[in-house]
Each structure stands twice: as structure tokens, then as C-alpha cells.
């Protein structure tokens, strides 16, 4: 029988202690136990990237991580991007370039793009497309998203 366990992690820079069921995924824990609903459930099987978060410096799909695994980890969700109500250049670029329509994919794209720019501040178009291949968008046709990431990268290097 699964039981409840107490998890201690840092989420978006803040130490957090919360209770999860051993059978919860990290995505379920974020959304249902902690109320951080920015990470979205698209496919729940690793294919769409809507649930992407950064865990100890690497991009992961939170639907493919068990909540019990994140004991002691450092996690960044889409809620952790903007600070003090100020959007980051990446978020601004998504708005400016109209890189979203329905928006369900946007948190995943933002988190994945942040992970890319943290790792490589000057990616080529090819590198951006390759890095974001695990994020699906059924609305925009991707071009505007790629352009937004390019613009954000230019802005951030300035």
C-alpha cells in the first residue's frame, strides 16, 4: 500500500515541505498538492513537454518523475521565471512575437527555452528547434516560438 511521505525541496528558490502520496507524479504534486498549476498536463506520457520543469539544472518532464524522487532537489517551474511581477525577457518575447494562441503549451516552452538559454546563450535556429523538439504546439506552427527564443537570446546578450 502506498503511503504519504513528507518531501523537502526547493521550488522556485523557496524551501518547501509538503506531503505527497508515494504514487503521485511530480506533476500531480505540483498541481494538486502545492497548487502550482502553471505546469500543464498534455499527454501524461512524456511526449508533449507541457509539464516540463528544471530539476537540479536539467530539463525533465514532471509527468515522468515521481514526487517521492524529488527529496532534496532544486526545482524551477514556470511560476519561478518572473520575479516580483516582472516578466523575463523570454516571457516578453513570447508576448511580443505572438508565440502562443491557446497557451496550453506555453509554460513548457518557456521552461524548456529557459533551460536552453541557461546552457547556451547564443543558440542557432537549428539548435533551438532540436532542443525544443520534445515540446508540442498544435496552434502556432512553431515559427513564432523559434523567433521569440531568438529575440529573447539577442535581448539577454545585449
Amino acid at each position, binding site marked *: 500500500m*502506498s503511503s504519504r511521505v513528507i518531501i523537502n525541496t526547493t521550488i522556485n528558490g523557496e524551501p518547501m515541505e509538503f506531503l505527497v502520496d508515494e504514487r503521485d*507524479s511530480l506533476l500531480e504534486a505540483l498541481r494538486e498538492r502545492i497548487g502550482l498549476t502553471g505546469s500543464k498536463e498534455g499527454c501524461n506520457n512524456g511526449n508533449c513537454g507541457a509539464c516540463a520543469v528544471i530539476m537540479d539544472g*536539467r530539463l525533465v518532464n514532471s509527468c*515522468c518523475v*515521481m514526487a517521492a524522487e524529488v527529496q532534496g532537489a532544486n526545482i524551477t517551474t514556470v511560476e519561478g521565471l518572473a520575479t516580483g511581477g516582472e516578466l523575463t525577457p523570454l516571457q516578453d518575447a513570447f508576448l511580443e512575437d505572438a508565440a502562443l494562441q491557446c497557451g496550453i503549451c506555453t509554460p513548457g516552452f518557456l521552461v524548456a527555452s529557459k533551460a536552453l538559454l541557461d546552457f547556451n546563450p547564443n543558440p542557432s535556429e537549428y539548435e533551438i528547434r532540436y532542443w525544443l523538439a520534445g515540446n508540442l504546439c498544435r496552434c502556432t506552427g512553431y515559427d513564432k516560438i523559434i523567433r521569440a527564443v531568438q529575440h529573447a537570446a539577442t535581448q539577454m546578450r545585449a
Partner: protein
Amino acid sequence: MQDVTYRRPATVQEASQLLKDNGPTARVLAGGTDIIVMARERRRDTSMFVDVKAIPELNQLSFSASEGLTVGAAVPCYRIYRDETVSRLYPCLVDSTSLIGGTAIQGRASLGGNLCNSGPAGDSIPSMIVLEGEAHIFGPNGWRTVKVEDFCTAPGRNVLDAGELLVSIKFPAPRPGSGARFLRFIPRNEMDIAVVNSATNLTLDGNTVTHARIAIGAVAPRPLFVPAAGEALVGRPLTDETTAAAATASRDAATPIDDMRGSVRQRKHLSYVLTERTIRDAARRARGEIVSHV
């Protein structure tokens, strides 16, 4: 999700004991990119996840000229393709690990998970076969080793017995004058399951092939080592004719099925084409040329 419990053993002994005590529904959890989804979708009855990522031996990634390369079974793909030594000496592993899933999958997915999932199309398995990988296994009867080409037995099945876990995969240091290459065919550029995949590792002395290993995947119930393909090259000069003979041996060894990803005829044809291409690229790498993984 099914009613699962979660354990995080710190040693291989503890992990083996948990697997033994809790029976076949206790599942090793490495990167979870196969097993979490399968457990959730009830494709695998699961009562316990035995998370092996706290065990030091499963996180090891080390090389020495005498011991070769040791890849802990739970080391995720991104650590492998970002490793400078692996990139220089085992670019074939970079070919495989950089196209398993997308970035977020590569942040978690391991070679051990790919091998133990034992899918016929597993994209790291042909590479591990041609690089002479050896699976190091720990279980109730202690340690044993199995060659990667003998590890998988049928779709989703392998040689692991009750209570056993894969600890690491070891590869000998590359032979002087050798080069290896992995390629996969999918209808798009990334994020799909192989229609066919192939790897070749060959050693050249001038233009004469002195050693060759070739493997193909997604064309049989398990990833296939094709000794006849290597034998078609060894002791001969590398020419269009000998390359064609090796590719023909691959095509002959393939026993594919028809499914939504490809027909028997297409898969037979691709076994030929991919073998030919991996031989060409492996030879370029053997001669010291840089062949990019994409």
C-alpha cells in the same frame, strides 16, 4: 497510477533484496521514461518502484585506458553526450544518446533503462553491441556479466532473473584505427521510434578492415548482432563491393514485421541502406574525420 510504494536503496545489495522480497511487480526505477508511463497506463503491473539512482555504482561514468569506459546503468543520456571523453572516444554513444527522445527525456533516460526495457528498437542497443559492451549484473547469487548482444531475449524480455539488477555497462578502450557510427531511420528528424536502426564499429589498417562488428534494430524480436556482416569485411579492403556484401548480410539477417511504422520490404531495404551508411561513416571516423552526430 497503480498503488505503488517507493524505495530508494543505497547499495546494490539492498536493491537486489527489495527486488527479490517483493517479486516481479517490484520494478527498478532509473530515469522512469519507460516504467512510469507503463505503470500509469497499466501496461506493467507495478507494486513498488525501486529507485536505483542513489546507488553510487549506477551513477558512475569513468574511463581509463586499461579498464575502458564504465557507464553506470542509471546515468542519463545528457551526461553521456556532454562528456568530453565519451565524445572523443565513443562518438557512436553520442549518436544514440542524443536522439533518444527530446531534451527532457535525455535529462532522465539511461542506457541501463534502454537495455532493460529490451525493446527491439531501443536506440542505444546496437551501439552498445558493436562497442563490445558487457552488462554487469548483481543479484542474489552475486555478480555475473553478459554480453550486450546476449542480454535481450524477446520484446520486453531479457536475461535478468528474480532479484537481479543491471549495475553498469563496460566497454573496452577503442582499438587503434577504429571508428563507430549509429544511425536510425524515422519519418521525421527527432522524437519517434526507429523504423530501423543500425550501428557499425570497424578497425582499419590502411584500407584493410581488420575488425568489424555490425548490429541492426527494429527488424527482429530483439536487437540483432549480425556477425556475418562483419565477416564480409574483415581481412578485405573497404570497397563498394565489400560494403555491399556486408549490407546484404544485414538485409538477409533481418526478419522484420509489418506494422504502422514500416513494411517488411521497407525494413529489409533500410537494413541494407543503414548498414551501408554506418560502414561509410565508421570508416571516416576510423580515419580521424569528424562526423557530426546529426
